[in-house]
């Protein structure tokens, strides 16, 4: 008699055992990250408090009076002060701000135009990120090769010329450099119209070609000082590294000089460079105010500057918090990344 074929159900592969998960969670790396994140939150609270303090201690414009306008009566200003919550004691305002921040991720509303600070910052982040990431690529692409070439021929004429140019690059004020770039290469007012001029920024999603063209000059202007600085740093690091014993060993193995310099020398010299680059990215994500100003890029940096000029405390707080958060996160990533780059580092 034929029986129904017994269907042997294959046990599905088990997902990572709870034990493995527990191991991952309690690994030293996980604990380290957790500890750092807790500190990060504490740090942001402190930064926030400091911003409040600075705003109230140092003479800045009265936001209620600014909002009320030139002919407003004192009663009206008092009304506005009440409406904005400015009549409450500082610590109460701070407490309310923190509560909104942590419970609702609500950064408040601008005193100027009543727009949500959070939405303003988020709408401006893509521009700042575009500017930062592009500049980083440019300055690393210029700074590292230049540094390597100089290091391989120290004190040669090429080295001296390049390092001299680097010094000029570091010293040139960004704003001035930006104006020169515009007057030379802007498509509307430049002598050699090549790239988008001031105010030509469009989002990447809207017009990729326009986005790129509008950012070329800002990238190079912002990258100049960094490229110069990094070239000098790479040169210094690499010269030091090339004097190390393991370079001698690498040569004694019969490797080509190029391999020795790049695979052995540069690899060791770059570790501190990359960590510093990580920190610089963190700082720039808080907004490169001068570059954004001269090229009229609607980023977070400009927003921060405008809010200071307008004594718009919620916006100031928002930009400061974002800037601090970026720096803290960049620090964390850099510290973890360093362990990946240098196996000798432990937590």
């Amino acid at each position, binding site marked *: 008699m034929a029986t129904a074929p017994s269907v042997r159900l294959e046990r599905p592969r088990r997902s990572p055992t709870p034990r493995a998960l527990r191991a991952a969670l309690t690994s030293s790396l996980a604990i380290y990250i957790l500890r750092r994140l807790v500190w990060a939150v504490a740090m942001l609270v402190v930064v926030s408090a400091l911003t409040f303090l600075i705003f109230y201690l140092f003479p800045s414009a009265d936001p209620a009076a600014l909002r009320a306008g030139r002919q407003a009566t004192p009663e009206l200003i008092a009304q506005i002060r009440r409406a904005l919550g400015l009549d409450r004691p500082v610590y109460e305002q701070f407490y309310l701000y923190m509560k909104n921040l942590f419970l609702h991720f609500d950064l408040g509303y601008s005193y100027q135009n009543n727009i949500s600070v959070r939405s303003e910052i988020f709408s401006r982040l893509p521009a700042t990120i575009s500017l930062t990431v592009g500049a980083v690529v440019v300055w690393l692409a210029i700074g590292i090769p230049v540094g390597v070439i100089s290091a391989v021929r120290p004190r040669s004429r090429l080295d001296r010329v390049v390092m001299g140019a680097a010094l000029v690059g570091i010293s040139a004020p960004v704003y001035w450099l930006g104006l020169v770039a515009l007057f030379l290469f802007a498509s509307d007012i430049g002598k050699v119209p090549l790239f988008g001029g001031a105010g030509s920024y469009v989002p990447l999603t809207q017009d990729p070609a326009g986005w790129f063209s509008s950012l070329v000059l800002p990238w190079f202007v912002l990258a100049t000082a960094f490229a110069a600085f990094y070239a000098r740093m790479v040169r210094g690091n690499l010269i030091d590294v090339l004097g190390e*014993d*393991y370079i001698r060993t690498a040569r004694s*193995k*019969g490797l080509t000089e190029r391999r020795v310099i790049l695979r052995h020398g540069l690899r060791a010299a770059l*570790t501190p460079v990359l960590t510093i680059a990580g920190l610089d990215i963190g700082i720039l994500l808080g907004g490169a105010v001068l570059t954004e100003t001269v090229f009229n890029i609607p980023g977070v940096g400009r927003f921060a500057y405008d809010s200071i000029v307008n004594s718009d405390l919620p916006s100031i707080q928002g930009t400061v918090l974002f800037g601090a958060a970026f720096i803290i996160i960049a620090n964390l990533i850099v510290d973890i990344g360093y362990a990946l780059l240098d196996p000798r580092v432990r937590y």
Partner: protein
Amino acid sequence: MAPLLEIRDLHVSFRTRDGVVRAVDGVSTSLGRGETLGVVGESGSGKSVTALTVMGLTRLPNAFVGGQIVFDGTDLLELSNEALQHVRGRRIAMIFQDPLSSLHPLYKVGWQIEEAILAHEDVSRRAARRRAIDALAAVELPNPRDLVDSYPHQLSGGMRQRAMIAMALVLNPDVLIADEPTTALDVTVQAQILELIRGLQKEFGTAVVLITHDLGVIAETADEVAVMYAGRVVEQGPLETILEAPEHPYTWGLLQSIPRLDTPRRERLRPIQGTPPSLIHAPSGCHFHPRCPYAMPMCRTIDPELLESDEGHVVACHLPVDEKRRIWRELRPREADAA
């Protein structure tokens, strides 16, 4: 049989801001196949620079190299950098004093050995890896399969030196130059490393140049000994000859200055008086004359030549042979006294 490696009148000087440093000032020596040459001398004697020059690692803009280094019939000093790269690592290999700083800290040990292989042979990565593991096993390292993925800082000093040796010998070179290979290690580990080198040498027939300041190391391993001082070879000969019947005041000083377990406690250590000379302004004539208790007027003005005094024994000293032998008979540490 023609020597495998012959150095003829090698001069190496470096132009520095303080002046011209004559690191190697006329060195001639040779090394036979499978032989162990011990090169002994204090810091600044030029022994490391000589070794580095053999490897072609002193080709710097501020360096002047003169003379000949004939390896297996070819003058290495005449070779281009590219051609020399084929010799380096493959036919002549070198290991260094401090294995922690001499291994790249950011790459795994196995990777560094594989790199050495892949630089000279066209094999697959996997094959190179297997050979690296074999090399690590050959230097008697435990768990070579795990070690191959370790970083240098994860190994002990002795293990690191073994790994360096493995890296140097993985391509079976003709010559291994070991520059102070045991100086940075414990005494017990020292012995193990030296034994390892001896064992590998026997197994693979590698010629070894062992550079050291420690006569004890020489005594354990060398067939032939060359004594260097201030950029020159002052005496060279078979091991027994140098230890038993040395004929250069510097060698006498070296032998006398070794502390011995059987020396009476009250007796003072006997260092060689004076300080090593400046290589920029080397003393005229015999470089050793300012410190030599037996210096004669001509020592100050005339460079002594390396002349053969016995079979296979050369010395550079103006003292007459009889004089030398008489002095040594007086100086030599008497076993009888110790009893």
